[in-house]
């Protein structure tokens, strides 16, 4: 799988069994059952949605960025991408994508990496790692902690890799109303940080809400 693949979905939001708007800069954690479809909508355009998936029956089995990239032979995620677990099993399959490219190399922002990337004084800016940690610390389901915070997906984020081995955070290719949709192939716990990063263009310097829907 190589080029970006734009596909629309026949599902209508009014048919969703779950419909929630995550405010800018906040976390969200929820379950998705095998067979359900999960949609994330980039409401205002170019909002990075940092996402992790866990196998609900065994949370030590989780989304694996490296296995997903290696198995499909390319680094960007789009329609048709199989999101693989650390054990090589398909967790979800991307079934619709009107944005066309999603990242899984850029990781999540954190207080500590912000001091490296930008300035020591920026340690106290809100960040995705803090969101992930507060969400899992308070999660009433199977225990999750920092060891479970691994390389995530950044839906709607554009991080091109050049043949020479360079990597940059570019202006996004998403736009208001773009969405990505995926079907769960096992029972899933999904953890999202609606990224609050202000120091690079991953959110177009303006973190905004995103809408999440689940369909049967």
């Amino acid at each position, binding site marked *: 799988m190589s080029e970006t693949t734009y596909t629309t979905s026949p599902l209508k939001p009014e048919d969703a069994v779950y419909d929630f708007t995550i405010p800018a800069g906040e976390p969200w954690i929820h379950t998705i059952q095998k067979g359900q479809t999960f949609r994330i909508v980039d409401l205002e355009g170019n909002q990075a949605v940092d996402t992790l998936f866990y196998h609900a029956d065994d949370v030590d089995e989780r989304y694996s960025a*490296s296995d997903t990239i290696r198995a499909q032979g390319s680094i960007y995620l789009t329609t048709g991408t199989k999101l693989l677990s650390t054990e090589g099993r398909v967790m979800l399959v991307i079934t619709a994508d009107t944005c066309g490219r999603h990242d899984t190399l850029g990781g999540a922002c954190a207080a500590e990496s912000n001091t490296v990337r930008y300035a020591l004084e920026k340690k106290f800016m809100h960040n995705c790692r803090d969101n992930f940690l507060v969400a899992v610390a308070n999660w009433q389901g199977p225990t999750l902690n920092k060891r479970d915070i691994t390389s995530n997906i950044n839906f709607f984020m554009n991080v091109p890799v050049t*043949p020479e081995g360079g990597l940059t955070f570019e202006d996004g290719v998403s736009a208001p109303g773009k969405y990505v949709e995926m079907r769960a192939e096992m029972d899933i716990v999904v953890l999202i940080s609606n990224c609050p990063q202000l120091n690079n263009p991953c959110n177009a310097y303006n973190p905004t809400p995103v809408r999440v829907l689940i369909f049967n």
Partner: protein
Amino acid sequence: MNLASIPPIPVDRLRFEETIHPGGMWSHVIKRHTTLRLTDLEGGANVSVLLYNPLFPSERYNMADTLKGQHIARLTKPYCLYSDMGRIFFSITEDTCGWHDTICGVSHAEMTLAQYGEGRFQELRNRFYRNGYDNLLIELEKWGLGRKDLVPNINFFSKVTSEHVDSGRLIFHVGHSKAGDLIDLRAEMDTLVILNTCPHPLDPAPVYSPKRVKVSVFTSEPPAADDPCRLSRPENTRGFINTERYHL
């Protein structure tokens, strides 16, 4: 960097050396300001590595922070290997190979069976076919770690490029690393190194043929104010500050 121009390790600095069995595993806590040298003895080796803070192993090598902080998609000198806490585990102070992969993960049992066929201990004894995933877990478990501690790893001596910035299609480069190629990793903090030498998961070779790798541990000078890794990027200058503060 030309192989011929790398000086041998001074005898008074060398702590110890070991040659790792092809496809085998190794782990050690490399102390701060000590250098770990990996040498590809035969050419075509792959060394899968994970790194942890031995005192607080929830702090571990972070592929994304390492790549995005330095704006790189491959590892080489004079870049640094970062933990997820804004600290530097290792600086790459020498590298004759020029490109090391950190995005493709490790091989698993099923793909090893599919690619090479069956290779059991019963028939092959200690040349039985191993895979990177199980080998990482074996070595992790020895230190009280396990599946929760598996994260995207480094594959030293392997080169995988993105064919084009738009497609992102991956290409594995056969024959990238040559006999004698080496990489020096200078520890900026005590670091637990977990490694194995199973083939890279994208290596197309039809025959299971991991290579022998030598590890050498030697004392090295702490990084000076004008150290090339410290000065390689403003991000790394801050990374060194974070790491030095950790020891105060």
